[in-house]
């Protein structure tokens, strides 16, 4: 997030797109609810009538995967009606003229043709956001899990740049991270392009620094992404170590994923449960769980916080860092003589400019949001104040593309997936917590009541959901939360393995899967 969570009290206008915040980030949503009560306005763009849409001043139920068209249409109106922040564009950005020229053909009527929205609603959204003194954008995976995820994010940046809604309180571009430490995993260098602290592997200084510290030459070229690595299993990739991920259930195209892991010569899994993925591993190593582990995690607003051990580990479970260090030592890799999580974290702080002012003791009270470039620095709640990291904010000339898969005669229904309030991810934790099944005992397919008749389905009956990659049987639940022609379910239940169906395409830059769009056929089936 460019801005802190506490800033959610401050915007005049919220623009929430592709974020089911009341279910996926409920506590953040309480801040929005409070802001609305004191008079803030909210635009919600989401194909489904999610609870947030019910609270919005304007709900834009766009067709799945048509976000770029909506955002171009809005930018067109903002430019056409003179709602741009011209001094911000002049002082802080680059490429503004080309961008404004680029927008000319993308009228709200054009955008309406692609998104299925009313052109007047697109105009209204543009004016609401464009006229806001403090306009803030919030998004989640509904933006990124598309073949055009990067285009979507850049389109949102364009909107913020052209209206000057960046680098100030109550504004910004704010992705809500979905996992407790997904931010920290990136911060810590577990990505193919960056060393810890987002230091590029192909930057000669960084490469030299880490090669020296780690005592061996490290390639100055990026590694492959996980998605490519799974494609390469049995070809160029022959051994894997997976830490705490139930890849088989969480990733798209389950059959492909399962086959990939089976093709490895050696698969080591570190986890807290014997997951579906563990069944494919050669070695399964029991890790300590949350509540049993001291450590550090970083939240969606870049706040660095301590996790603390409250109870002893179950059985012989060990901390992840200890397990990885033990394997490394056995392979003769130097530098793994850690005695505590503190040792590890302090090493990261010494290597990473964004944590340079931190250490284990200094984060005791969780008051720092990175970057914290030196000791005594107060941290950085708001990014891009005064200037951007790379000098000027760059406009991107984005164009609309269809999703990897569009509906046709054989697969006439859009499927989109997500989470539900009571279940988390592949349900390995919430599914093992007493009482959750009182509220959510099984997965079901949300089908608009109008579609029931057309598809010959009955509410409470079963359907076969078929994509080009497979079939899943699922209970049908009539709900006008999903629009006609689009169905929804979560990926949390292993007995409804919806990721058998997904995986039609990937963003060419990030290789993030298009989990939010998939063309399916829905047919009634006996229980």
């Amino acid at each position, binding site marked *: 997030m460019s801005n802190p969570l506490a800033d959610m009290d401050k915007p005049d206008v919220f623009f929430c797109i592709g974020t089911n915040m009341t279910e996926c980030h409920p506590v953040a949503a309480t801040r929005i609810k409070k802001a609305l009560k004191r008079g803030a306005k909210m635009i919600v763009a989401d194909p489904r009538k999610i609870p947030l849409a019910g609270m919005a001043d304007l709900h834009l139920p766009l067709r799945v995967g048509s976000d770029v068209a909506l955002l171009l249409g809005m930018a067109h109106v903002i430019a056409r009606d003179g709602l741009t922040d011209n001094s911000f564009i002049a002082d802080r950005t680059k490429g503004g003229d080309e961008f404004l020229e680029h927008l000319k053909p993308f009228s709200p009527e054009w955008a309406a043709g692609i998104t299925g929205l009313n052109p007047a609603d697109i105009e209204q959204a543009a004016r609401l956001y464009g006229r806001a003194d403090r306009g803030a954008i919030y998004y989640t995976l509904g933006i990124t899990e598309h073949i055009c995820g990067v285009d979507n994010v850049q389109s949102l940046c364009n909107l913020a740049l052209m209206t000057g809604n960046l680098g100030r309180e109550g504004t910004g571009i704010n992705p809500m991270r979905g996992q407790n430490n997904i931010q920290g995993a990136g911060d810590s260098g577990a990505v193919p392009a960056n060393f810890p602290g987002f230091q590029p592997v192909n930057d000669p200084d960084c490469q030299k620094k880490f090669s020296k510290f780690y005592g061996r030459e490290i390639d100055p070229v990026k590694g492959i992404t996980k998605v490519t690595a799974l494609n390469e299993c049995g070809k160029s990739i022959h051994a*894997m*170590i997976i830490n705490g*991920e139930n890849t088989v259930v969480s990733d798209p195209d389950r059959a492909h994923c399962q086959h990939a892991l089976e093709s490895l010569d050696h698969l080591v899994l570190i986890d807290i449960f014997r997951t579906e993925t563990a069944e494919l591993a050669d070695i399964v190593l029991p890790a300590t769980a949350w509540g049993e582990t001291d450590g550090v995690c970083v939240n969606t607003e870049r706040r660095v916080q*301590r996790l*603390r051990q409250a109870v002893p580990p*179950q059985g012989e479970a*060990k901390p*992840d*860092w200890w397990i990885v260090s033990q394997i490394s030592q056995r392979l003769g890799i130097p530098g793994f003589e850690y005695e505590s999580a503190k040792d590890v974290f302090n090493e990261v702080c010494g290597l990473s400019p964004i944590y340079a002012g931190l250490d284990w003791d200094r984060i005791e009270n969780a008051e720092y949001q990175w970057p914290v470039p030196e000791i005594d620095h107060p941290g950085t709640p708001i990014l891009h104040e005064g200037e951007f990291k790379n000098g000027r904010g760059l406009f991107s000339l984005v164009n609309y593309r269809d999703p990897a898969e569009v509906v046709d005669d054989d697969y006439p229904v859009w499927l989109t997936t997500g989470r539900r309030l009571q279940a988390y991810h592949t349900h390995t934790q919430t599914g093992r917590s007493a*009482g959750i099944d009182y509220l959510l005992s099984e997965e079901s397919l949300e089908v608009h009541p109008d579609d029931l008749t057309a598809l010959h389905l009955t509410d409470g009956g079963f359907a076969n959901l078929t994509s080009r990659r497979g079939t899943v049987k699922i209970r049908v639940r009539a709900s006008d939360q999903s629009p006609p022609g689009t169905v929804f379910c979560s990926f949390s239940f292993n007995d409804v393995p919806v990721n058998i169906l997904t995986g039609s395409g990937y963003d060419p830059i990030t290789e993030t899967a298009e989990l939010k769009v998939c063309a399916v056929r829905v047919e009634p089936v006996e229980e």
Partner: protein
Amino acid sequence: MNATPEVQTETLTLDGEEVSFHEGETIYEISQRAGREVPTLCYDERLEAFGACRLCVVELEGTRNPVASCTTTAEAGMVVHTSTETIEKHRRTLLELVASENPDATIDPLRGFASQELNELLCKHDVQPGRFQGQLSGTSNNDDNPFILRDYDHCISCYRCVRVCAEQEGDYAITMMNRGFDKQITAEFNNRLKDSACTFCGQCVQTCPTGALGDRKAMRAESLPGKLEKTRSVCPYCGVGCQVDLLSKEDRLVGIQPAMDGPANEGALCIKGQFAFDFVQHDDRLTKPLVRGDDGELHEVDWNTALDRAAEGFRKVLEEHGRYAVYGIASGRAPNEAAYTMQKFIRAGFGTNQIDNCSRA
């Protein structure tokens, strides 16, 4: 956080001492700041002041009756007494009235964060129930949900649950019905919480000052031996990073309470953070290393055997297929130290950047 210091220009007299305040501050807030012990039951600093319990009354010179300090905005020149004989007598009578309405029972602190507030006040003011004879309030509600106990015999109609649900959570799932001794907190159509707008975030439970609302999951541990310990940590679910206190008794993790001063959540949690903690000590947890045998099955082994086998497999692949053939996937659910050592294993071990995490899934 950039807290702008408030301009404090005006003053009033608090128990004979001149105290400055800023516009909009209440007498209660000023008293708290000045370290006075003013009791409350309906007060939660996150909520709008309500003035229902009347315990926070103070004497304000120039007014005939004592005023509720939580709803009285300070004005320059006010002369306030927070603890006089009359005020103390008044507070004691109020507490006796409250005590007589409720069954005399020990409330386990596992019921909720604020569950001891009434008991602590009764002890402090040495109040015994029974001075006033009368009806008991509330009827218990047979709500079968596994999370929230609704034991209205202990309800004192402070409205904190109703207000936290509306003001803090924005859900408006509960309200008050009837009057007098029949007064009752209720959900839509007097139904179960499950059939209401309730999201089971547990905020009502944690603000209840009497334990009328209780955390049913934590209460399962009431009979467990050992002292109740609290350990500050961060919720293991989404990326908001709500701070929590883990409740434990000896080796058992028994419940969760929100950290009222957590920077991301300021006392709020959702159903997952509040109630979905017991996976940690679930029987399904892996407790020993497993290694796949020649029979194709996973077998329990000791750590040394497992780690040797893990290392041996990487060594073999390195020899046969070269250093690019080894790949690491780190977790967005494990701490930084896990992700850092994973990337170091790949980079320092093989000199490649064949490492990623699960954010692309």
